[in-house]
Structure formats: C-alpha cells, structure tokens
C-alpha cells in the first residue's frame, strides 16, 4: 500500500499490542515533558507545540480518512491512542475542529468546504470553538434563540452564545442558529460556520469558579455570514449536530478522570501520612473498587466499539457513574487535605492543582455533555421504557 506522508506502514495492520507499545515508546521521546499532567485545561498558546508534534506524526486527526490528512485509524486503534495519551498525561488540545467539526464537514460538507477548512484545521491555522449553548438554552438546546436572518447573499446573525470552551483562542466558531420558525422547533435550526473576526462578534471570557478563563460568552450583533458558510441544508442543523452522537460518547465515560483523581488522593494521603490509617484504607478501597468495576463496564462498551457495532443509549450509564465517582473521589480528597483544602493558587502559579481546585474542576463533569439528570432521563425513557 502506498500512502503519501510520514506514515510508511499501515498502522491498522499492526496488532493492538504492538500499536500500543509503539504509541507508548513514541510518547516517551516525543511528548514535551513540561506539558505532562497539566493541572488545568491549557490555552492554545500553551499546547500549540503538542498540536504541531501530532500533526507532524500524522496522529492529529486519528479518525479522519487519510485523503483529508487524517490517520485513518480503525476505531479500535483510535481508542488505544486516546487511552495511551490519557495514561501518559497528555494535554487536551483545542480540539473542537478535529473531533467535532471535522467529521461533520467530511460527512455533510460541500467539496469546496472540505478543501478549504480541513487542511487549515490540520495546520492549526483554524482553531474552532463550539457555539451551541445559550443563556436560555442549556439542557433544552432546541429552545435556542440566536437568529440567522436571510439577507440574500448572506445571513445576519443576532444573539448570544455561552459556555463556549476556549472561544477566546479560536478564530472560527461552528454554531446553531434559527433560520426559520418551523412548527417543530428543531426543524428551524441551521448549522453555520462563523469567522470570529467578523464585525459584530464580541468574545468575553468567563472565569470559572476555579478562576480559570476556560469558557467564553460570545455576543453576535448584526454579524454577516456568507451564504456558503452553512453546513448542509438550511434547517438541517439539529440533525447534523446530533449525528456526532456516535462512538465519541464513550469518551466521557472513560475511567481517566476518576483514575487521575484517585492517584492524586493516594499521593495526598501518602504526603500527610493518613495512608496508614485503616479508615482511610477502607474508604480508598471502596473508591478503587468502584473504579475497577467502571473499568469492566467501560471495557464492555469499548469492545462494542472495537467490533464496529453501534453504541445504544445504554452507554449513558458510563457517563453518569464515571462523573459521580470522579466527584466522590475529589470530595474525599478535600476531607483528608485538612486546612490545605482552603488554599488558593491562581491558575499558572503552581505545578499541581490544589485540593480545592481539583474538587472544583470535578463539578462541571456532571453538567456538560448532557447533564447527568438528562442522561438519567435518556436511560429511563430509551432504555428502561418508562412512560413520559
């Protein structure tokens, strides 16, 4: 097989074990040591180097087909890559363009859109953010009010987006806006591609309760969007946005967050000496047992993904259990930290996050990606068949 670029052999032909070993070995020599286990989500000026290293290696977009610059890895190999990156403590990238928009462009985009946008994501020239949530539309996203008015050769956007992760780093935003007053409110929504430098776009960072400027609100005031910057047909936005609910849903239930938090708990206990206390050991063991069972369940769904079978709505149990375990671990960390739990360090000051910061950072896990209440609604209705 002949493929252009740095990949001399087909990684999909390797055994999973060999591929895993290769990834580990490569990380040990290629990953920037100063970026291991970052205490918070990094900004693009901090993680750009890792973005470029991955692009050079050909692993920046593991799931994209090779014709678009991706690694074309099988789902099974993509999962291994993600697991090894997690285990090594690799920083998360400003990856909205790669994991969210790219697959949608490849599936729904015009030839011109693919030719224009995909290479610019690969080069890091375009950094994307997501504009879904609004002040009045969170869990009930279909109630969104941002409007795109048809003005002949362009759309005119008015409205407000919020909780846009790392939007201040981004120069493009994909967003959902209402293009018509359809009877079924989902049908009036379109998927637009917005250049952030357009006149009328104002980005204001929001400090999280952890004092990190991770989110932004984005104000849209008579913003012109060229007619061609729509993905799919007008009114197809809701369907397109939901098309991404594929195997990606397993990632939010990955044991990684809980594993990392549990390691921090043990390290804190070793530091304070409480590790030898039998009460601590019993409570820690209970948390470790929950994590071990979560891993068993995760492996079951990962197996489904590896076999190329679709994940049913049942996978919501992973998200619910994982995120709540993650929070319980951080709550116990607060308890054993004692007075240290009161300490505050500004983002960027310390090498490691304080116990309070670890606790606070665990809070949004049960809110984003579909709140745990929404996940339980999904389980009740779509899996357990309970009435509405």
């Amino acid at each position, binding site marked *: 097989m002949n493929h252009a670029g740095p990949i001399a052999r087909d990684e999909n032909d390797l055994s999973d074990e060999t591929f895993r070993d290769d990834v580990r070995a490569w990380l040990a020599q290629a990953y920037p040591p100063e970026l291991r286990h970052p205490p918070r989500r990094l900004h693009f000026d901090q993680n750009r180097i890792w973005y470029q290293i991955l692009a050079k290696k050909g692993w920046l977009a593991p799931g994209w087909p090779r014709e678009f610059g991706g690694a074309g890895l099988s789902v099974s190999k993509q999962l291994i890559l993600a697991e090894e990156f997690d285990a090594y403590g690799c920083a998360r990238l400003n990856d909205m363009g790669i994991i969210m928009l790219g697959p949608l462009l490849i599936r729904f985009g015009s030839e011109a859109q693919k030719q224009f946008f995909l290479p610019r994501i690969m080069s890091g020239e375009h950094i994307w953010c997501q504009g879904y949530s609004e002040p009045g539309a969170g869990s009930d996203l279909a109630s969104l009010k941002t409007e795109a008015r048809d003005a002949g050769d362009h759309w005119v956007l008015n409205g407000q987006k919020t909780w846009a992760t790392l939007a201040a780093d981004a120069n493009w935003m994909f967003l959902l806006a209402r293009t018509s007053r359809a009877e079924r409110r989902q049908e009036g929504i379109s998927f637009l591609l917005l250049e952030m430098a357009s006149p009328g776009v104002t980005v204001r960072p929001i400090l999280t309760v952890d004092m990190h400027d991770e989110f932004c609100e984005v104000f849209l005031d008579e913003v012109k969007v060229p007619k061609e910057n729509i993905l799919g047909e007008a009114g197809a936005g809701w369907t397109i946005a939901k098309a991404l609910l594929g195997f990606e849903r397993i990632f939010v239930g990955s044991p990684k967050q809980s594993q990392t938090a549990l390691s921090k708990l043990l390290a804190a206990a070793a530091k304070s000496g409480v590790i030898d206390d039998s009460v601590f050991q*019993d409570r820690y063991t209970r948390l470790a*047992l929950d994590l071990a*069972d979560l891993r068993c*369940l995760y492996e079951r769904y990962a197996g489904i993904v590896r076999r190329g079978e679709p994940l049913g709505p049942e996978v919501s149990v992973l998200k619910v259990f994982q995120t709540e375990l993650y929070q319980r671990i951080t709550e116990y960390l607060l308890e054993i930290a004692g007075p240290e739990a009161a300490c505050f360090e500004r983002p960027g000051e310390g090498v490691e996050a304080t116990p309070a910061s670890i606790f606070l950072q665990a809070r949004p896990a049960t809110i984003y990606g579909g709140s745990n209440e929404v996940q339980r*609604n999904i389980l009740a209705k779509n899996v357990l068949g*309970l*009435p509405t």
Partner: protein
Amino acid sequence: MVAPDGSLRRARELRFSHPGYDRNMLAQIGGQGWLALRLSEDAGGAGLGVSEFCVLAEEFGARLAPEPALGAIAMSRLLRGQDLDQCISGAGVFIPAWRETGEPDAPKTRYAAGRVSGVKHAVYMADGADAFVVSTDSGAVLLRASSPGVRADISASQDGGNIATLHMNDAPAELLNGDMDEALDELSLATSAYLLGVIGVCVRLTLDYLRERRQFGKPIGAFQALQHRAADMFTQRLLLDASIDAAARAVDAGSESHSQRRAAVSRAYLRAVEASLLVTREAIQLHGAIGYTDEHDLGLLVRKALTLRAVAGSAAAHRRNFATSAGLFGATENAA
C-alpha cells in the same frame, strides 16, 4: 423449576420446610449434567468454564432455586469415586463448610491422622446434608454428616432456608486432593452471579410496576424522581454484570497472576453485596406498601439477597483481600 405463571411459587412453597429445597429437583439438575459442569470431559464432566458456571448461577438466582447446587458444582473437583458420582448426580448432598469466626487467614479447624476438630459457622443449607467439604489447616477434608463427633446446630435463615454451626470433635474425615481456596473463589463468583439473577428480577418487577401502577392520573413511572432511581438500579445491575463477566474470564483464562484473579473475585463479590442492597432497598421503596408484604414476590428476592450477602463472605475481609491482592497500598503481592 419455574411455575407456569412465571411466579416464584416453587421457591415460596419450599420456604421454611425440611430441608428447605427439593431433593428431586437437585437430582433433576444433576440429570441435566449441570452439577458436572466444571469437571473435565475426561472425568465425565462438561469441561465448561467459570463463565458458564456464572451463567447457570444467574439463572438459578432468577428463579430463587433453593437447591444447594452451586456448592456441589464448586466442590465437585475435590471429590473422587463414589462421592463424586453422588455429588454430580445430585443423589447426595455435599455442602461446603469453610467460615470461622474472626475471618482468620488460615482455617483454625485442625485435621490430623484421619480426624478433624473445629467449628464452622454460616454453613448454608446444611439441613439434610450427606457430607460436608470442610477447609482445615491441612487442606480440604470430606466429613460425613452421620459420623460420630459431628453436630450441626441448624437455624432458619431469612430466605426460608437454613444456616448451621458445625461442631467437629475428633470426627473421622478423609483428606481430599485439590485446591479448596480455588473452589471457594469459584463458589464466591457463582454466588455473585446468583445475586445478579436476583437483582435482575428485582429490576424487572420494579420496572413493570412503575409502568402499571397509576397515581395522580398517570403511571408512577412517568415521575422523574422515580425514573432516576430506576436508572441507578439499572446501572448497578450492569456494573455487577460487567464485574462478574470480567472476573470469570480472568479465572478461565488463567492469564493473570493468582492474586489478580483473587482481586477480581473479591471485586465482583463486593459489587454483588452493594448492588443487591441498593437494588432491593430501592425496589421496596418504589413498590410502596405492597413491597413491604410477604404476599408479594419482591420480599422473596429481598430476603434471599439478605441471606446470601451474610453467608457468602465478609465484605470487610473481601475488601482487605482486594486491597492486598491489587496492591493498592504498595503491597508487593501484585508482583507475585
């Protein structure tokens, strides 16, 4: 094994009887070849793995089968000759006796020169036993129930079965070949799987009830507060299923170290303990007052779970075992 109407009537009728199960049914189970499931084909068995043992145990649990079949299957590989034939045909009743007070690491029951002395607690379904497979300081021994120096003090258990304290005073016994610890690990895993079956029925009954029961003009299952509790019951069932499955595969593959396999068995058992408590407790609440009656089948499930959690092992001991076997606090056993 199950009533034509799908109810748990057979299990209900056998409660608080002697010996608390149907010996004919045990023989029928033996006749199916199920009691020889773990024996190699050379030894006249089915040559199946712990995974299949767990599948069978789950089915027994879903029917609340009171017959002491799991112990017979787990202990069969320690037996030979006529005893083995009796055990796997279901014609004889062989009951494991392994628990002692204080959960010592090694049994305090002593065996020497063909005689055994000691006390075993929590011997489940001891009524009507023909023989006991007893753990001792010298390994597993076979003790006939009719032997001199043997006394079983039998009391009723919550599920309508029985539980005994077995006193052995210089009683004649035969030393057995084979690893009793491994057999007990398998029994522990199978018991977890039996509890999985119990939990599965609990979840199903509760979901049926949430769909049918109407209050305030709608099915109570339409209320979000109850939906979310049902979702958490379901999650616990899935976790237990996955935990047992992984542990059984680890035992069957034999690929991991002995301590890792033990850690997996303890992990699955502890999930069974936690899940069965949560699911049965929630099932009662979601059923309302009818869930608190003896007339409803739910009570049979609740009390079976109560009993098995208590007799099948100590949660604290399993937690310690998991922590040590998994090397949570830097123990070196993980490297073994």
